[in-house]
């Protein structure tokens, strides 16, 4: 089955981790999708929205809607950005015309792992990675999109990979956008609690969100840990 | 404008034109449990909470048992509710144990070691005793002493909380008593480091006598 997929790279993916976006595209193509990338895209508007600047967020969200409303399916390597798109109807609740367009776009916006499993019915993407991997349930994916089993199913099918249960798997990593820089000590304390469950059995801590991984990686590197932070797409693209 | 009119006015103005979602129909739970199942569940929950439950044959046996428990407790003063049949306790109370009536002075009641009362209903699923103040004067006797002995007819043991709420509401909709109290186990606290301490202000121990045949005199 071939699905046309409009890739939403996310602003962080585009600018900081192009390899994650490329891995996302590679896995989708391997799963039989025709992947397009519209270079007019920028950001989902979440940073401004979460900071209270809804007018500024709306301007960016409108652009997103215009760019993506002709797509069949929009797939992003991020639960958080996808959840933001799902919030557009709320953002435009007082503007009926935009609200309707936002609903249409939200309806076809998918997070990468759940798109593979729920929409394509794929769990084995032919990946191989010899590593012991612990999973971080990124909050917005977990609680707003209900993403929980999908990435685990995908990881279970990776050859050589051992999934290690993490006691603090569902705990927030403390990123929270500008929260991480408004309250750096608090944000880090939350992260350190999360990381306190890591032990020598773990080589890789993985998630569906690059923003969480930026927070996690930054701290692991600062602490000189040998544990690597990898996006799910990077694992699934490994052969 | 007085406070009542100001507050109600503000609420009314604020809600002008507001649409209210429908109120769900009352959904009183019930469970078709046999007497044996109700006794078993009630007992299991009480035991988990630190309560003791035993079944006695009839009211006379209950009074005899109470007498024995008062003796075992070494009770000097016992506070009794005004349930008429508790008069039978006097026949079995140990020598030297003073029995206080429900209308005894407050200071005396505060000195009681044991409180003896009936309960109007029990709830099997939650291990709860329901005390209705209109049926019996037991508010103080069930609260002040360190040990609370409760007598409950087995036929008053209901299945669920829903059945209890139905029973507690009279035909006209008003509660059957001005004071209705649920008691589920002994008094407890976990306010210090979440460590369980049983018996902080209310009774430290709860002992329930289920009366199998309540028709006895």
């Amino acid at each position, binding site marked *: 089955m071939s699905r046309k997929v409009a890739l939403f790279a996310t602003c962080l993916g585009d600018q900081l981790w192009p390899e994650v976006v490329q891995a996302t595209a590679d896995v989708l193509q391997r799963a039989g999708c025709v992947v397009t990338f519209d270079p007019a895209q920028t950001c989902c508007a979440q940073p401004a929205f979460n900071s209270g600047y*809804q007018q500024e967020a709306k301007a960016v969200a409108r652009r997103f809607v215009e760019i993506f409303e002709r797509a069949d399916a929009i797939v992003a390597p991020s639960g958080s950005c996808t959840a933001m798109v799902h919030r557009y109807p709320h953002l435009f609740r007082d503007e009926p015309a935009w609200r309707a367009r936002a609903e249409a776009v939200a309806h076809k916006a998918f997070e990468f792992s759940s798109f593979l499993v729920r929409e394509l019915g794929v769990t084995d993407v032919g990946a191989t990675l010899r590593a012991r991997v612990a999973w971080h349930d990124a909050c917005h994916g977990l609680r707003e999109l209900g993403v929980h089993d999908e990435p685990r199913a995908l990881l279970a099918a990776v050859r050589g990979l051992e999934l290690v249960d993490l006691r603090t798997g569902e*705990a927030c990593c403390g990123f929270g956008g500008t929260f991480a820089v408004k309250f750096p000590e*608090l944000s880090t*304390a939350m992260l350190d609690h999360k990381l306190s469950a890591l032990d020598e059995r773990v080589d890789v801590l993985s998630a569906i969100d690059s923003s969480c991984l930026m927070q996690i990686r930054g701290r692991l590197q600062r602490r000189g840990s040998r544990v690597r932070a990898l996006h799910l797409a990077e694992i699934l693209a490994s052969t | 404008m007085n406070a009542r009119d100001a507050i109600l006015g*503000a609420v009314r103005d604020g809600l002008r034109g507001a649409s209210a979602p429908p*109120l769900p129909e*009352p959904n009183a739970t019930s469970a078709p449990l046999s007497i044996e199942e109700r006794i078993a569940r009630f007992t299991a929950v009480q035991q988990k909470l630190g309560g003791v439950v035993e079944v006695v044959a009839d009211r006379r046996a209950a009074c005899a048992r109470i007498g024995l428990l008062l003796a075992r407790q070494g009770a000097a003063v016992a506070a009794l509710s005004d349930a008429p049949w508790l008069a039978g306790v006097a026949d079995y109370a140990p020598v030297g144990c003073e029995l206080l009536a429900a209308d005894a002075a407050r200071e005396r009641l505060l000195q009681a070691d044991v409180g003896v009362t009936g309960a109007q209903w029990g709830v099997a699923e939650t291990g709860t005793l329901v005390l209705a103040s209109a049926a019996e004067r037991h508010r103080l006797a069930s609260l002040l002493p360190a040990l609370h002995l409760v007598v409950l007819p087995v036929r008053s043991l209901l299945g669920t*909380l829903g059945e209890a709420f139905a029973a507690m509401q009279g035909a006209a909709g008003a509660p059957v008593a*001005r004071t209705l109290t649920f008691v589920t186990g002994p008094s407890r606290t976990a306010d210090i480091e979440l460590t369980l301490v049983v018996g902080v202000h209310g009774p430290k121990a709860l002992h329930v006598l289920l009366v199998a045949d309540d028709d006895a005199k």
Partner: protein
Amino acid sequence: MNSMRPETFAANAREALADATLTGALRRATDTFADRRAAAIGAVPDWQELRTRAAAIKAHTLARLDHYLEQFVANAEKAGAVVHWARDANEACAIVRDLAAARGSKRLVKSKSMATEEIHLNAALAQDGREPVETDLGEWIIQLAGETPSHIIVPAIHKTKEQIGELFVDKLGIPPSSDPQVLAAEARTRLRAHFAAADLGISGVNFGVAETGTILVLENEGNARMTTTLPAVHVAVMGIEKVIPRFADLETFLRLLPRSGTGQHLTTYQSMLTGPDPTGQGPRELHVVLLDNGRSRIVADELMRQTLACIRCGACLNACPVYQSIGGHAYGSVYPGPIGAILTPQLQGMHSAGTLPFASSLCGACKDVCPVKIDIPTLLLELRRRAVEGEPAAAPGAPASLPTRRKPLEALGWRLWSWVTRSPARFRAASALTRLGQKLPFAKQLFGPLRAWQSTRNAPELAKRSFRSQWRGPVR
């Protein structure tokens, strides 16, 4: 800890994090509660239906609050209760002070109640030399220590048993002990004397039943039963949002509240009081003080109204990673944690508490555990919007209030961000500039947010080439 204000949340949080005893105690407590809650709701197959039902009952009641309040008052008065109305904290305190003064009450006891904390009733009564003795063990400890509660359900959650033991040695002159059994036994003895002598008892109200005029007070220790039974006068302070339509609705809420709060299937005691008890076993007088104090304003706001559905179970505190890390005092408000972060700014106003909605990573754990399904993250986001845009007009034609979060540089930054981000050309140009900028020595030290990031974490760098500049088109 007790002089903390919401305005200084960031500094409060730093102070809390530096206290290893506090953070250790908090983590143990919130973990324990979360585990107990999970076990308790695991045994209820229809948990989600119960939540949906409770949320629907609350939504309905709040949207018809005037009707249900009038019904509640009529039935409570019919049963012989005296109902008083208080627009704000001052009025509420004045009512209780007057009641106590008119009866010459000398010895007051009080059971745990968030509403009385909210109006600072103890301090008001203390002005007349009538400060009530707190009788809930945790509240009593806090009162002895001269502190404020740090948790809705477990007020002394921040104190270790050793600290409480030292407090008892200091204030009560008992031999040293850190055994909770010994400490609780001491409390039982000491508070008995207060109960015996009390002439006026003050409680809160968990639920007020419109249909019957009944108030329900829920507890574990028996101190609320003492407080509402022994003194000749009982004064119950009740927020106007506590009313529910029917007596039978109590069942739904009793199934939800204890499981969410302490993980119990039911707390030990529920007292359901319908007017004073004519059997002479309880107080001769029952007074209900209905408290507005900002609630009627919240009712009027369609989106924010759900804030008032809260049944004060404390589950959102225990589930919140921010609360787990710093506890309740850092919020600087009577209501801490996620519920405090949405309730306090609405009760007190954004001027004093406008920081609290920002004190969240928006992880959503609070919404997941809320027994009445309050969408706390959405309300946090809305309050953030109001902090930067100003509050909506209070009435049609009235002016909207000014933003409380007046940070011109921040606002300018977001306007600039929005202008850049809605054009791919400007976005490309800005990222190219950033790529150049990050090569400059000290660049990371110059930019405030990056400096904050780097205080604890390594910062990422922009990739040499963005994805958009590498994309070669779809593979066919």
